[in-house]
């Protein structure tokens, strides 16, 4: 397969009424590839697909088809067809007419030229349309259904009509937006295989949207993992599964154990209270996230592994058992085909190349804010009490609220811009909307013995924190940060604020 770029998205952004939905989307798709956009609900998959189809215009950035910018080409002129999330078949037409809809509108070169030498276009003949429609229906196994009404078909059959209606036009790119979302599990599995087969036979480039990671892993040549409008990782299913670049991807794709760890040296990392051999190279003492897949953990006799753990739960999953083990206060999920009893103490081993080490996404929260007249810190989301004496060693605040230096100089920090840093462990959250800063929990990832929670305020400020308590996504919470935990730095020299 020639590595020819058929589609390229360059720095694409999309805002709806000022709310950013897709951010800095960069991707190229090779001809004939099966690319999947994978991500949780609301992460911008459909929006991106709609920009490719031409139903939405990017706020910024370029979309190139075969090297040419197609931003200004309306959807009906793009050689791209879509299978919609809810099919969008035309109920007033029968199966045949649904499939023939695009063909009847199509004009092709008749081979003749007019006086000016321009090619004369013609519609397809009835026979040509007939043949193409029959071929397409055969490809989706619906030969006998030509004259059936749409609403007499089952979900799976409607799905096939939608696919036939799109592929009959021989598009260069076929877009599929969660096409199997409405089908039951068994049907979905069957259709997955058929889609994969069809992709192979047709040679058309497929761009597929799903939030089902298993589906993405089964079908795709390339997976684009998205979260919150941003691409997290692009890679083959194997890359993404074996080498997730961050905790979000690891958590989203397959089952995983995720821990905080510290690099000891080039070959060792410390997590789960123990030293493990590893192969990824990171700077010494770096704080990292470590991922271990449940199937990569080996259970052995007590004291024979790297560490000992106690089995606290056991569930039979058909081909293997799924165990939860406790290592001190940390949980470890393990999949193994051998049966062990609950409460047994066992040894644990993980091969060095099965320990996946990733950059920690957040080491601290950083914001830009300013100080008000009363020496409060003002962030976009609200007001926080802070300690401004940290800005100048040996200083104190006088009765009028000015900062007084050790040399007696007085500073007026009203409206001073500051950089703010708050550690992940220094933020508390509380149910309800009482506090100064209120937001919604948009993500929660379990990291072995605690959760990493992201709270997003209406002002789009994120507060990332570690907590041992369980919350739910979409909970509304108020954010509290102790005064002494807020680290401030002035963006300008302090002498700029000296009172005359």
């Amino acid at each position, binding site marked *: 397969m020639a590595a020819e770029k058929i589609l390229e998205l360059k720095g694409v952004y999309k805002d709806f009424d000022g709310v950013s939905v897709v951010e800095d989307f960069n991707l190229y798709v090779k001809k004939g590839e099966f690319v999947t956009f994978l991500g949780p609900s609301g992460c911008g998959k459909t929006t991106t697909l709609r920009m490719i189809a031409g139903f939405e215009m990017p706020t910024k950035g370029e979309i190139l088809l075969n090297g040419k910018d197609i931003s200004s080409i309306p959807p009906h002129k793009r050689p791209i067809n879509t299978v*919609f999330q809810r099919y969008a078949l035309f109920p007033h037409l029968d199966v045949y007419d649904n499939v023939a809809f695009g063909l009847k509108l199509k004009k092709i070169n008749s081979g003749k030229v007019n006086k000016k030498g321009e090619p004369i276009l013609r519609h397809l003949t009835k026979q040509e349309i007939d043949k193409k429609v029959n071929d397409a229906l055969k490809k989706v196994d619906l030969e006998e259904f030509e004259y059936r009404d749409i609403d007499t078909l089952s979900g799976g059959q409607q799905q096939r009509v939608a696919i036939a209606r799109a592929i009959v036009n021989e598009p260069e790119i076929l877009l599929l937006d969660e096409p199997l979302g409405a089908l039951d599990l068994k049907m979905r599995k069957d259709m997955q295989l058929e889609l994969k087969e069809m992709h192979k036979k047709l040679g058309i480039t497929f761009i597929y949207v799903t939030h089902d990671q298993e589906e993405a892993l089964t079908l795709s040549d390339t997976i684009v993992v998205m979260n919150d409008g941003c691409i997290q990782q692009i890679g083959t299913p194997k890359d993404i599964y074996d080498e997730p670049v961050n905790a979000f991807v690891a958590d989203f794709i397959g089952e995983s154990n995720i821990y905080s760890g510290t690099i000891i040296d080039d070959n060792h990392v410390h997590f789960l209270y123990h030293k493990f051999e590893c192969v990824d190279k990171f700077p010494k003492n770096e704080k990292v996230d470590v991922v271990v897949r449940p199937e990569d953990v080996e259970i052995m006799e007590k004291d024979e592994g790297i560490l000992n753990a106690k089995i606290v739960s056991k569930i039979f999953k058909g081909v293997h058992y799924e165990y939860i083990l406790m290592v001190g206060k940390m949980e470890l999920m393990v999949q193994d085909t051998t049966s062990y009893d609950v409460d047994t103490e066992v040894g644990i081993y993980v091969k060095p190349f099965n320990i996946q080490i990733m950059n920690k996404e957040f080491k601290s929260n950083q914001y830009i804010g300013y100080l008000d007249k009363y020496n409060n810190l003002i962030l976009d989301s609200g007001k926080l009490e802070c300690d401004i004496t940290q800005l100048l060693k040996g200083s104190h605040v006088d009765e009028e609220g000015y900062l007084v230096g050790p040399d007696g100089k007085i500073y007026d920090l009203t409206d001073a811009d500051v950089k703010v840093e708050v550690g992940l462990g220094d933020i508390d959250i509380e149910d309800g909307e009482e506090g100064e800063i209120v937001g919604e929990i948009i993500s929660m990832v379990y990291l072995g013995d605690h959760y990493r929670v992201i709270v997003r305020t209406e002002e789009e400020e994120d507060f990332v924190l570690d907590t041992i308590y369980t919350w739910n996504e979409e909970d509304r919470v108020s954010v509290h940060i102790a005064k002494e935990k807020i680290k401030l730095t002035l963006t300008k020299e302090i002498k700029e604020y000296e009172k005359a």
Partner: protein
Amino acid sequence: MVKKILARSYLSLILIIMYAPIALLIVYSFTESTNIGTWSGFSFDLYRQMFANEEIMEALLNTILIAIASSVVSTILGTLGAIGIFYSRRRMKRVLNGITQIPVLNAEIVTAISLTILFVTLGITFNFITLLIGHVVLTIPFVVLSVMPKLQQLDPNMYEAALDLGATPSIALRKVIIPEVLPGVLSGFLLCITLSLDDYIITAFTRNNSFSTLSTYVYGVTAKRGALPPSLRALTTLITILMFIFLLLTNFRKAKAVKN
């Protein structure tokens, strides 16, 4: 049991009050007597009189003419309007939706007076066109109201699916959206016809005085002579029967639609 009988008799009473006058009229349309209450033998004479009365016949024709003309115009404009509103931006949509529904809630007399003032101010003499405009204004919101739910029932991606398959926006409208909302368009049209047929207020205000419809004719003769000419009994019966057939037709269409 007693409750049931009570409920039954209550219902019957209401139905009798509702339909007795009409029934009386129908019965007495088959006799020549000038007064209702005196039966002077069965005859079709009133019907003969009615068909011979050129004024009545002209009014009947005019009524049908204006009903069909205004309904066609309203249906076309109303359908396109509904589609326009449906596919416009969210904020715009709310405003437009409100505006088109004001005439439904507004008292007809207000609409009628406003139109009259408008025509007079613009120096337009009252003619068939002003009457047509009057009836279109009266009926158009009902077309919008009956097409809108059909649009809301459409798959949200229907229009885009047509574009996706190579249809220009106008082809998508003609080949997909309009056929899909056709049932709503038809019921809107039927609603227009019934509204226009029996309209008096708007007609009285916006017509040219030489142009009478059934409603203005009936009102005219009663106002002049004080008593209903007997042939009107035949006319009323005829209208009732026509309306009844019309109702059956619409219901039949609805029943069929439900079955599908």
